[in-house]
């Protein structure tokens, strides 16, 4: 560690030595060392489950480490709780915001600050001042439910900045932003760092880390697997440090365009039953056989509603709004749509895609029941077992056997199983929601390959994802959804991340895309 301390003359802002945290059944952090200098933007890179979240909770006083020590400005310290962390000048922006929808920005921030908030008018003035200074303009009187996701994140950041701050921790901050919003955020963060604030930037997005961060610490399976200067590495060498040498990393896939439409959606509108849901407005698009259509968008812009309408969980009054070659299907239940060739990979793996407390065999039967696994109302257990074992073998699902419960598999393995289960039914249309969300790179690559292979066999595929890089990698045509409206779809080579980013923010011609 001595070598990394050489650059700044002052003591490092934060030093972690040998931090270890054990949970029943897993070692989340195993002897982690980390040093962050003043004014440094430090990336903490790692896949899901590598121990990033635990480590930052240790720093913020939410979790007590079992071993190891923490040095703040060179002095050993024990962070008792988040209030103590804030007193020290540590601020944290969580991936999931904790804001009250019905309160104003000022009221929310006052609640978070507790006794330190002072009187509201002064605080409001301070919020305006800080937000203006860092290019994140906010009107402190607005109620939170009127804000976009990006604006809510600004509230969380401003909450940290209204007090003196020395270290700002950001947990996957870009996952909820459009590419343009990401750029704006980076400007803010660079400005903050220039003023001497240290930033710990937690991410698994390699390009962002390379663009923003001065140094990076890479975690793998609870241990530090490497440290580097991201600007001097390329994305694949960073990925190697994250996943190790034996995992394949995805590549580019050739783009194709299908001709025969399989799924035709025309003027699909639906009022959401959830008061905080999003209404679908005149959504129209085609998915052709033999191509992958990607729909980008920031979470909560109507994706759930669109997917529920397509899966059949919600049935549509205008039957013809959703059309398969066999005819209108808007009124059909999921089972009937499945028999017309639909396969569906939902967003939630456990608790929708798979039953947590059932074995993989039973989970294979869950949607595979139309493929001859049931005869005269009785389950043929032999065939179910063979089907499950075929999925496990073909999609390299890591599990002791087909009797393991779905809940015992890692996210990536379970997702491979679910995707395999759907693909092996030979669907004509596969709809996948966030197929690689929270999945390790190895599994994500395997999933992408499986989707491409299915496409090349002539199936129509629709992928809805918040990961715009993923969509550019696998989609043949791409569009974005914003406030329940869908942008026009363009062949991927003819568009750019910037253009799709604008669509994600709602900047596209109104619903005349019916053609």
């Amino acid at each position, binding site marked *: 560690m001595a070598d990394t301390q050489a650059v700044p003359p002052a003591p490092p802002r934060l030093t972690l030595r040998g931090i270890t945290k054990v949970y*029943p059944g897993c070692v989340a952090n195993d002897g982690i060392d980390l040093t962050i200098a003043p004014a440094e933007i430090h990336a903490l890179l790692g896949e899901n489950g590598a121990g990033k979240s635990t480590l930052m909770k240790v720093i913020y006083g939410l979790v007590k480490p079992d*071993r190891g020590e923490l040095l703040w400005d060179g002095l050993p310290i024990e962070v008792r709780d988040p209030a103590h962390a804030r007193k020290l000048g540590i601020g944290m922006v969580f991936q999931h915001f904790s804001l009250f929808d019905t309160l104003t920005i000022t009221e929310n921030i006052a609640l978070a600050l507790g006794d330190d908030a002072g009187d509201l008018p002064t605080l409001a003035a301070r919020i305006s001042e800080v937000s203006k200074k860092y290019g994140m303009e906010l009107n402190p009187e607005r109620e939170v439910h009127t804000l976009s996701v990006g604006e809510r994140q600004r509230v969380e950041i401003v909450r940290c900045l209204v007090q003196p701050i020395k270290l700002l921790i950001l947990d996957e901050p870009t996952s909820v932003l459009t590419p343009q919003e990401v750029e704006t955020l980076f400007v803010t963060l660079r400005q903050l760092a220039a003023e001497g604030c240290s930033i710990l930037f937690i991410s698994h997005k390699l390009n962002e880390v390379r663009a923003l961060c001065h140094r990076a610490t890479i975690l793998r399976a609870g241990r530090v697997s490497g440290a580097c200067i991201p600007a001097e590495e390329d994305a694949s060498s960073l990925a190697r440090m994250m996943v190790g040498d034996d995992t394949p990393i995805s590549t580019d896939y050739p783009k194709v365009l299908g001709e025969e439409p399989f799924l035709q959606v025309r003027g699909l509108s639906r009022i959401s039953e959830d008061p905080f849901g999003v209404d679908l407005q005149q959504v129209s698009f085609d998915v052709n056989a033999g191509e992958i259509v990607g729909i980008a968008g920031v979470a909560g812009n109507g994706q759930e509603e669109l997917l529920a309408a397509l899966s059949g969980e919600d049935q549509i009054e205008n039957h013809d709004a959703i059309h398969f070659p066999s005819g209108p299907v808007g009124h059909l239940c999921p089972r009937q749509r499945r028999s017309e060739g639909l396969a*569906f990979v939902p967003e939630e793996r456990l*608790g*929708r895609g*798979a039953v947590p407390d059932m074995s993989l065999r039973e989970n294979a039967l*869950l949607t595979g*029941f139309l493929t001859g696994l049931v005869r005269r109302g*009785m389950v043929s257990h032999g065939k179910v077992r063979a089907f499950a074992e075929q999925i496990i073998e073909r999609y390299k699902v890591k599990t002791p056997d087909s009797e393991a419960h779905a*809940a015992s598999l890692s996210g990536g393995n379970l997702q491979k199983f679910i995707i395999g289960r759907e693909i092996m039914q030979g669907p004509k249309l596969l709809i996948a929601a966030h197929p690689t969300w929270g999945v390790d790179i190895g599994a994500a690559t395997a999933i992408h390959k499986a989707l491409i292979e299915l496409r090349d066999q002539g199936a129509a595929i629709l992928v809805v994802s918040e990961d715009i890089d993923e969509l550019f990698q696998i989609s043949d045509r791409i569009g974005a959804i914003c406030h329940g409206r869908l942008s026009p779809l363009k062949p991927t080579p003819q568009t750019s991340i910037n253009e799709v980013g604008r669509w994600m923010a709602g900047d596209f011609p109104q619903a005349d895309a019916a053609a």
Partner: protein
Amino acid sequence: MIKLEPRGQHSKLMAWLSPVLAGVLTLVSGAILFGLLGQDPLVALHTLLVKPISDTYGLAELCVKAAPILLCAIGLAVVYRAKVWNIGAEGQLLMGGLVGSACALALIDIEAAWVLPAVLLAGMAGGLLWAALAAWLKTAFNANEILTTIMLNYIALNLLIWSVHGPLKDPDGYNFPESAMFSDSAILPTLIDGTRIHLGMVFALFAVVVVWVLLSRSFLGFQIKVLGLDASAARLAGFREKRLVWISLLISGALAGLAGVGEVAGPIGQLVPSISPGYGYAAIIVAFLGRLHPVGILLATLLMALIYMGGEMAQIDLGLPVALTGLFQGMLLFYLLACDVLINFRIRIPALSAGKAVPATAPVNQETAL
């Protein structure tokens, strides 16, 4: 201090051990209780649990008691798998007894082989209709089935009491609240001469096998299990939730109805106000004690029937109140629920492990202990 620590996954061993542990704790508590009442605990437990089944007649009586409990509990295993909390087996049993009796009394002058099947089917229909009410309220109005089935229990009880005081009262019965005795062709034949064991036990065992096949082999049973474990997965797979709620409630209602008609057409032979000493409620305990598994339920039923008989025996031999039965049932359920915590949690006593945790190798120890 004792701490509960999550295991991280279910312990299959504890899932089976927990009912056994609950049984042992019930026995220990029972023994202490008997001691406090001034009885010799061992004698009392012997009276309660061994003496009732120390001869053939006792064993046959055990089966007589077990049949209705088993029928109700095995039906409950189906609905509870779907996480539909039918608390109304008692009411469905009473309606089975009532409708079956009405049928038997209507056919009292007919001597034919089809009378008994007709009576049994009428009983099943009675239980089924009573459960259908709850199913309709749940699927049409989203009414909580726990509340509706409990309330329907009281309605069924009062309907039954009204019937034996009114339309079904024996005209030659000196105004006692009882129906006429059924004709012989409406009575379930006994299996062993000199005992009261009747065909109902055969029906119950048959139901156990059918439900076992339903739950473990059939696609319908699979759908019911998925609905119970994960309703949103069931929805996504296209299983029809309302239909499954209907089917599972109807199965459970019909079996409880069969239990009821089996009582009036079996050991009782007529309709009386008290055809069930709470079999339908005991069946809830049995269903959980048996882990909703047909074999487990069979074993738990025998234990529950024994407690019923033991309660009576203790009343006769030791002069203890018959409330003992309810007390033992309650303790059994209480301990079972408490022990079930151990399926997902383990007990850790920090005072004991603190000494070990100080050395730096402690996390490694913990890891290997897993």
